[in-house]
């Protein structure tokens, strides 16, 4: 039994190999895109809307609210990236219970790609907000001596992201496969259900961690700005003659 979707190759040409990971990823992309298009093509801003539109609005509103709470900032900047992370991972994990489907997130390549995207998104969002100097200067804080540790920390949390997601999803499929050979019907079904829960939770964890990493890259700058403002206001109060 093949547990790694990368090894299931449908088509290959030189270094280009269309494997199950890619195919099922395209399925997920198709489901998300076509589903969104089908609903939003008839979107209505009125107060009486369809159930599908209502569901989409509920999902988007929930993601926005989570982003707002976690980052303490306007969510629309991070919504496309973080929201897509969550939706892609959760749909990928959920289709794993469908017989014949394999979750793309069971492939380390997929989770590593997603983690790499998060790793790249942190400096991109940071530089967009603070500029090159402002963002890169964080790595020298509190002292330049901390630079290697900051870099190692960035890399390690990215690896942790990838491994965490991969391990949880892949292990769920592995346990089901093992149990099928030992005690069919009941335990595999229970584990599949458990796997669904784990899949949703892991999608949420991945998205929240990504958001936290992105927001933390900007929070230090915001904290510095707040400290400067509080220092200037206390200086004005102690010297009233300057008013």
């Amino acid at each position, binding site marked *: 039994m093949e547990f*790694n979707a*990368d090894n299931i190759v449908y088509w290959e040409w030189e*270094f*280009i*190999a269309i*494997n199950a*990971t*890619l195919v099922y*990823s*395209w399925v997920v*992309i198709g489901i*998300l*895109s076509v589903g*969104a*298009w089908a609903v*939003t093509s008839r*979107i*209505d*801003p*009125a*107060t009486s809307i369809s159930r599908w*539109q209502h569901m*989409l*609005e509920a999902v*988007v*509103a929930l993601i*926005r609210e989570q982003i707002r709470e976690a980052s303490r900032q306007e969510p*629309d900047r991070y*919504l*496309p*990236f973080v*929201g*897509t992370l969550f*939706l*892609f991972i959760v749909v990928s994990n959920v289709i794993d219970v469908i017989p014949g489907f394999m979750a*793309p997130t069971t*492939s*380390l*390549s*997929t989770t*590593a*790609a*997603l983690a*790499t*995207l998060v790793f790249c998104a942190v400096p991109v969002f940071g530089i967009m907000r603070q500029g090159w100097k402002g963002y890169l200067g964080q790595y020298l804080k509190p002292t330049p001596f901390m630079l290697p540790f900051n870099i190692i920390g960035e890399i390690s949390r990215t690896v942790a992201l990838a491994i965490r997601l*991969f391990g949880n999803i892949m292990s769920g499929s592995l346990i089901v496969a093992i149990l099928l050979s030992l005690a069919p019907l009941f335990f595999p079904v229970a584990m599949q259900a458990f796997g669904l829960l784990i899949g949703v939770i892991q999608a949420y964890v991945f998205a929240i961690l990504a958001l936290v990493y992105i927001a933390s890259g900007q929070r230090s700058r915001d904290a510095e700005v707040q400290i400067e403002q509080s220092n200037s206001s206390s200086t004005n109060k102690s010297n009233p003659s300057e008013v």
Partner: protein
Amino acid sequence: MQIDWFTFFAQIVNFLILVLLLRRFLYRPVTEAMDRREKKISGQLEEARIKMVEANEKESQFEKRIKDFEEKKQEMLRQIEQEVEQKKRELLQKVRQDVEEQQRRWSESLSGEKTAFLRELQIETSNKIVEVVRQILRDLSTRDLEEQVTEIFIQRLHEIDKKENRRLVASALDYGEGVIVVKSSFEVGEIQKKRIIDVLREKIAPNVEFSFEVVPALGFGVEIRAGGWRAGWSLNGYIGRLRDEMEQAFAQNMNGNAVLTKPGDIKEQS
């Protein structure tokens, strides 16, 4: 557990494509629709709030106006009530006066009619009494009674005083051409005639002439007339006096009667 690098990079590309697709087909339309709806609802809520404020202001204005109208209405009602009360009093007073006037006229008319009726009644009564008495006396009239009447007449003649005597003489000479007429309702006997003549001559003059006439209309009696002077006894005299006394009595009775209505009999209606 091995990373397929082609898959790795392909997944990166896939994810970026997915981000663009979802941004185009999911996030933007949905957030725009939600924002439009929120603005619309906010606008409607704000409009409703403004309308509520306006409605409250209008309500308070209307309440104030209604209160003013109510006060004015009460004031006008009070004025109207006072005017109506005044008018009612005036009308009642006028009606009372009219009624009193009418009552007075009725009283006067009634009094006049009563007076006329009583007058008629007394005249009729007097006439009837006289008629009855005449009839009685006529029925009772005998020789003895006639002689009694003549004797009474003669006694009356004896009672004529000097003053009356002179007047009799003057009248007889002025108007009667010296003749004195003795009238009676019955035929006086010769003896009575002589006695009458003797008395008269004694009283008036010895040479006065006398004549005797029978006048049934005298009403049982004897009298003597000389020009404007008269003396005698007759039933008509008594009846006349009776009539006078009856008239006097009726007049006193009518003056002493109370009026039929008083001014205070008409009461006010509330």
